[in-house]
Each structure stands twice: as structure tokens, then as C-alpha cells.
């Protein structure tokens, strides 16, 4: 297991036609869950994409401990597949042509022997309480089952960073609470930085304790959820 390392994010992006908003945000994410909170269009998803390597910032630096993922000054940019940052998108993006089990197995390092990859995927599905859907295709899953499979896929691969992009927004409160328990336990065991994006204050309060408050592409405040979201 990797030593406890914080994710340091500094992302600057000029406004473009698709994204009518300039982004200039810097914050640190220690191991554990950090809520990235802000209204729709504040730039939350864009920042996650930049951390995952799906989008190249104009300036800034993204690093995990002493591992540099992106550095505009030196021109370094690690491609997404070498960053080991798991993302759970709001759309979940489960592969429709693969079974739930194959979806989870997909992200596990290919250097691990096949039977061990399978065993790890099965164990994670069991742990997150969806072992019974292992053989099924995503389109046959209920919303809650699909969410769990997506989470299993993100965690089964020993990620170095976990990014949850409104991953629980479509859920009711009871489901969200039960999944929150799973996610915090997993994040705690792996001891990795985890960013959870949300625009819903109630969801922020159930899911996290540390919060980065974002508005119009800029960080307004960093602190405990309770303080930042109650004092308005």
C-alpha cells in the first residue's frame, strides 16, 4: 500500500466557447473524502477531468505526493491511464457490452494474473453487495445496482485517487447513506485522497467532513462541511 499522500491540485483554464467560464482553482486533498461543493456550472467536473488527465489545463500543476501528474511549467502531462485515478461519472459509464464482473475486472492491472483479477473483482462485488448481478449486463441492472457496480469498478483496482462526480446525486437518501458507509470504509482502508463532487448541501453533509467550496471557477473557502455550508 502506498504511503499516505495528498493530492495537490492547481488548475487554470481560460474560458472557451463550450465552457463559458475561466477556472483558477487551487486546493489540497489529503487522504480521505473531500467534498468539492458548488452550484452547477462552477467548474467542478472540469477540475475532476483535469485531475484524471482527460483534459489538459492551460496552466497549473497536479501532483500526488512527489509524483507529478501534470506540470504546465515543465510541459509534463501523464496520460490518464498511467495516473491510476478512478473516476465514477454521474452517467456511471459502465461498458454496455461487458458483464458487471468484466466491468469491474477491466480496471485491474493487467500484470495481475487472470484468475487473481477475477477473484478480486468478485470480492469487491461481494463486499459492495452486488455479487448476485456479476453475470448481468449493465442495461439489466437497477439504478442502485449500477451505482454499486460502478463503485466496485472504481475501487477494485487499488486506485491512488478516487474521483466521484455527482455519483450519488440520482439516489434517494436511504440509498445514499448506505453507499456512503461503504465508500468511506473503502477510502479509509486504501487511505487515498477522494474527491466527491456535489451541488447538493444535504448530500455534502451526509458524505463528507472536509469541504472545498467552489464558485464560478474559484475556491471560495476550505474547511469542515458543517461550517462552510451552514454559514451562508
Amino acid at each position, binding site marked *: 500500500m502506498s504511503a499516505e499522500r495528498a493530492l495537490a491540485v492547481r488548475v487554470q483554464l481560460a474560458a472557451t466557447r463550450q465552457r463559458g467560464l475561466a477556472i483558477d482553482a487551487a486546493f489540497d486533498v489529503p487522504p480521505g473524502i473531500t467534498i468539492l461543493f458548488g452550484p452547477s456550472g462552477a467548474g467542478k467536473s472540469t477540475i475532476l477531468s483535469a485531475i484524471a488527465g482527460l483534459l489538459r489545463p492551460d496552466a497549473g500543476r497536479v501532483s500526488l505526493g512527489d509524483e507529478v501528474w501534470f506540470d504546465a511549467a515543465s510541459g509534463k502531462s501523464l496520460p490518464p491511464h498511467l495516473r491510476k485515478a478512478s473516476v465514477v461519472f454521474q452517467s456511471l459509464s459502465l461498458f454496455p457490452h461487458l458483464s458487471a464482473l468484466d466491468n469491474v475486472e477491466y*480496471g485491474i492491472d493487467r500484470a495481475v494474473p487472470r484468475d487473481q483479477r477475477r477473484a478480486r473483482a468478485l470480492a469487491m462485488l461481494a463486499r459492495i453487495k452486488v455479487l448476485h448481478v456479476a453475470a448481468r449486463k449493465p442495461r439489466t441492472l437497477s439504478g442502485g445496482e449500477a451505482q454499486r457496480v460502478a463503485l466496485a469498478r472504481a475501487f477494485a483496482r487499488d486506485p491512488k485517487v478516487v474521483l466521484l462526480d455527482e455519483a450519488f446525486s440520482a439516489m434517494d437518501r436511504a440509498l445514499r447513506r448506505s453507499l456512503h458507509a461503504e465508500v468511506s470504509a473503502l477510502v479509509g482502508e486504501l487511505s487515498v485522497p477522494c474527491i466527491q463532487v456535489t451541488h447538493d448541501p444535504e448530500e455534502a453533509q451526509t458524505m463528507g467532513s472536509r469541504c472545498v467550496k467552489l464558485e464560478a471557477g474559484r475556491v471560495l473557502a476550505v474547511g469542515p462541511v458543517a461550517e462552510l455550508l451552514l454559514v451562508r
Partner: protein
Amino acid sequence: MQWAPLALSFEVAIAATALAAVMGVLLGALLASRRFPARDLFDALFTLPMVLPPTVLGYYVLVSIGRSSALGRAFERVTGSSIVFTVFGAIVAATVGSLPLVIKSARAALESVDPALVAAARTLGASPLRAFFTVKLPLASSGILAGLMLGFARALGDFGVTLMVAGDIPGETQTASLAIYDAIQSNQDARAAGMIAVLTALGAAVLYAVNRLTRLRNER
């Protein structure tokens, strides 16, 4: 009923479809990639065979693989036979007509794959190549298969380009469409009837199957 020209047509069409599959998916993937410069220009260029007269296409093929071309001479040095007026010429001729159909459908099918799924694969540790082969290509496969079937039907029926490039040598390069022409020219319609029936049935079957495949893809 003549079986030899029909059998030759099938052999040529299968070889041509295999060639068109490899080149068509590659070129379709290039055209579908957003980073590829001037892709609409290249798309138009690759689509030209669908609108040009067979004689013009045949001329281009002769210029590029004829006995005086670099490609033609290299082929002759290696295999000892020229490309033109052989079955290889017939294969190249059939490929020219079917390639645009494969490129078009491969591009459309690859472009219709949700980019978020490819992004998900990349964040799950897949190199661009692995993401292409394990996510993008399988999800585009029914569209590509439809294109290959159309390309096969097109290759099976090629007339003009084959005539110019491979000639009409009975027993060597005489494919079914050429044999039908010869039979009718010499008032031996009965000789052509079987081949006409087989080609028509096959064309109809391919179009039906393509429609089914397209519907299947839309329902997913």
C-alpha cells in the same frame, strides 16, 4: 449454368472484403478521430469511388498498379506475375468499390460510440490502443459489420473496374458479372439465368441483414 465464374466472384469478393475490412476500419478510425486534420477532405477523397465512372477508377488503378508502376513492378518481382489481368487485379478492382462503403460505416459507427465510455476506459488504466480495441471497436462492431456486408455485396457485383484491370479471361479472371455480360451478348441468356438468380438473392439477403443489424444497434 456456369459455376466457375460464380465461384471466382465469391473468392474475389471474400478477399476484397478482407482487404477493405483492414483498410476501411483503419481509415474510418482515422477519420473518426477528432485530431485528424482535414478529415472531411479525406472523407470526400475516399468516397470518390462511389461517384466516379468505373472507367476512370479503372484508369487510376491501372496507373497505380500496372506493369510500369512502382507497385506493379515490385509485385511482379516478388511473385513473378503481374497484378493486371490476373485474379489479383480482380481483387484490387473489387476492393476499390467496396472500400468507401466500409470506411463510411466504420467512421459513422465509431463516431456514434459514447466518448464518455472511452474516457472511462482510459481512467481505468487502458492505453489509447486498448481502449480502442476493447471498448470502441466492440461497440461499433454491428455498424462495421453492416458496412462489410454492403462492401461484400458491392465487391461481388463489380463489373467495369474488373474488366479494365483484370480483363475477361474465362477460367482466370471472368467473374460472374462478366460472364453474365458475355452470355447475354452471345444470346445465351439461359447460361446467365442461374448466376443472375444467385446474385439477386444474395443482394437482397445482404440488404435485409443490414437493416436488421442497424435496427439491433439502435435498440441497444
